[in-house]
Every structure is written in structure tokens, then in C-alpha cells.
């Protein structure tokens, strides 16, 4: 586990810092994420994803969930309307993607969508920040990112790519 911390700690930390600006909160969140990584280590399947993608997925889930709950805290919603939605199962995944396959599939997206992907994934900008930078309406940014991700998935599926590793 110490090897795991040394290898993947910087990935988890760097990813979390993209979502959470406060340092102390980020540190607490990283501890929670590692607890979850250790619990879910047993579900890791190297034929589905690389170690860094697996850890990246858990990190993003927790960070997104953290932000979602934070945003919701001020207005405590009635229990009856609270939602419950399970985490998608890694075992059910069918589109492993290696770096080259991803790069190749990205080229099939429209230029505008590729630009939004770059701002979102590479530069770590939020949707409102992207809207401001590009001049696109916020809803359009959201829609293009979603549809781009779906198009990417569909392209990888139709290409029948079977190797799942990104960098490890």
C-alpha cells in the first residue's frame, strides 16, 4: 500500500486540486479517496483499465460527489425527493481504450468539440469558465461535451478496440 501511495498519490492529489481549491479540504478528500481505493482494490480488473485510469475514475467520482453534496448542503431537501443512484459497475464496462485509440477517436470529433474537450480535460476549466472563454452559451458547452463523450464512446465501441490501457 505504501507503493500505491507513492505511485498514485500525486495523481490523486493533482486531480483533486482541479476540483477543490481549498488545501485542507483537498487533503481530507484525498484521505477518503485512498480509503476507497483500498476498499475497491479488489474490484480492479487489469483487462478493463490501467491502474491510473482505475484510480482516476475513483478520484473523479469522489471529487464530483463531494462537490455535488457541498452544493446541496445549504438546502436540505426532503428525504422523499432525495435521489439514489448506484455507481456504474466497472465489471460491466466494454470499451477499454488505450492512449493511441483515444487520440485517434478524438480526431473524429468536430473541431469545436475537440476544443471544448481540451479546455475541460487538459486545462481543467469548469463549464462556466469554458462558456466565458469561448463565448458559447453554458447550455451549449454542456451539451457539446456530453454528446462528444457519447460520440467518443460509440466510436471506440464500433472500432471494436479491445485493449484498455492508458498510461500506468
Amino acid at each position, binding site marked *: 500500500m505504501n507503493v500505491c*501511495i507513492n505511485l498514485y498519490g500525486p495523481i490523486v492529489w493533482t486531480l483533486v486540486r482541479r476540483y477543490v481549491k481549498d488545501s485542507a479540504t483537498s487533503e481530507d478528500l484525498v484521505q477518503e479517496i485512498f480509503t476507497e481505493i483500498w476498499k475497491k482494490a479488489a474490484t480492479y480488473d487489469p483487462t478493463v483499465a490501467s491502474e*491510473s485510469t482505475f484510480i482516476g475514475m475513483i478520484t473523479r467520482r469522489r471529487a464530483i460527489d463531494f462537490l455535488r453534496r457541498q452544493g446541496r448542503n445549504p438546502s436540505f431537501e426532503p428525504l422523499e425527493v432525495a435521489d439514489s443512484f448506484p455507481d456504474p459497475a466497472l465489471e460491466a464496462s*466494454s470499451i477499454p481504450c488505450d492512449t493511441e485509440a483515444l487520440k485517434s477517436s478524438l480526431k473524429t470529433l468536430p473541431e469545436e468539440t475537440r476544443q471544448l474537450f481540451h479546455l475541460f480535460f487538459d486545462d481543467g476549466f469548469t463549464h462556466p469558465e469554458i462558456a466565458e472563454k469561448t463565448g458559447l452559451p453554458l447550455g451549449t458547452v454542456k451539451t457539446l461535451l456530453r454528446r462528444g463523450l457519447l460520440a467518443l464512446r460509440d466510436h471506440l465501441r464500433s472500432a471494436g478496440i479491445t485493449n484498455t490501457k492508458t498510461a500506468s
Partner: protein
Amino acid sequence: MNPSDSENRYNELLAGRALGDLTPDEERELALLSEQADIAPDADLELLAASLAVEPVLQRLEPMPAGLAARLHQKAAMIGHSGGSPIIYPQIPAWKNILLNPMIGWAAAAAILILSLVLTHTKAPLPPEQAAARLRSEDKDMIERKFEGLGEFKQAAGRVLWSDAQQRGFMILTGIPANDPRKAQYQLWIVDPTRDADAPVDGGVFDIPSNGSPVVVPIAAKLALSKPKAFVITLEHPGGVVKSKQEHLVALAKS
């Protein structure tokens, strides 16, 4: 909405979930569509998003703060030396893939933990009293407190057992009404005197089944604990909350 529209909308919401941009209304819509379609979402979109997010991060990694790394190593040491846990943990569906590929980096990193988990989980869980005796024998300084029901949950009772040395513990609970996990879940909070008194540590979310028998619930503390002073159970949204408003206090155990 015809079936094709529903499917498109469902996929769009799944993509939103993977991107982290769902509104609360959309989350509810996704849950509803998922129930109607009666299908479990796969992780394809999340894996894709993770791949796309991790790749650039690898090019500009920031080191973790030294203090955080030290705390993680400390926690790892505690978990690594706590083998033989008698309590119930989640199922392990795919561990064999890692054990069959010992040269894989992740497997090597996680092998010690996985092996201890596998050895633990292939055994049937011990009955509550045996589990308590075992934890007591492993840590003579183990903390043990009685739960008392609060407000409308006066019938709630039980005990909590916690080992600082092993950073693990569990609760044995009775008299707590069964919950519908789709509507609400119980959540444990732990007051650690070394931390901010207004921010108890999240001890994990759990459910109470309807069979009425004592329930053994492992404590899933999100942070390392030191001589906790109180354990509080609340009823919260499904999945729990980051900070409880304590509107539904269920039970309290304190020193």
C-alpha cells in the same frame, strides 16, 4: 417520449454524470430512467472521462504535501497490520484477476491488502459477541460504549467498539427501524477530540434490514481517529451527507 428519445436522454444523462455536470433534477431523472429501463449503467463513460482527465495530469503532477503523505502511510500501516478482521465488508467480485497477474503494478501495490481481505472474506463473519471478544483480545485499549436511542428512536440500543491501534471497529445495533435505502440511510459520525469539534468524522453510511435481529455494522471512518469521544447515528439522504444538520438524530454513544 418514445423509446428512442428515452434512450438518447438516458445516455446524455449518463454522459453528464461522467462529466460531473448533472443538476439535482437531472440526477433524479437519471435515477428514474434507470429504474424504468431496469438496466445497470456500465462504467464506459466514466472510464473514458477518467482516461481523458488523467492523461494531461500525468504531464504535470504535483507532489502531495508531506504531512498528507505521512498520514496516508500511517493509515496504510494500520490497515496492513489489522488482518483477521471479524466484521463484514463488501463483496469481492474480481479479486482473482489481480492475484492471477502478480506482476501488474497495481496488483503488486495492493497485494498485501487484497490477500488479507481475501483470507478474511472467505471466512464466515463471526457472531457479534465473538467479534467483540476478538477485537478486545487484539487491543486491550479498545474503546467500548453503549448507544442510547434519541427522540423518536428511543428503542434504539447497542454498542460501539473501536480500536485506535487498528483503526477499525464496529457497532452492534438493535431497535433501529429498517430503512428504505432509496429514501434515506443511516450515517455514523465520530467526534474526535483532536479534530474540529464542529466537524465530526464521517463513519460511513449503512442500512438496517427489516428482520429485527441485531445488526453488526463495520465502521468506515473516512479519516484516522484518535480516542474518539462520541459516536452519533443520524438519518440522512441516500448516500449520506458531508455535513449533517442533525435533523434526524437516532442514537448516541459517548464517554
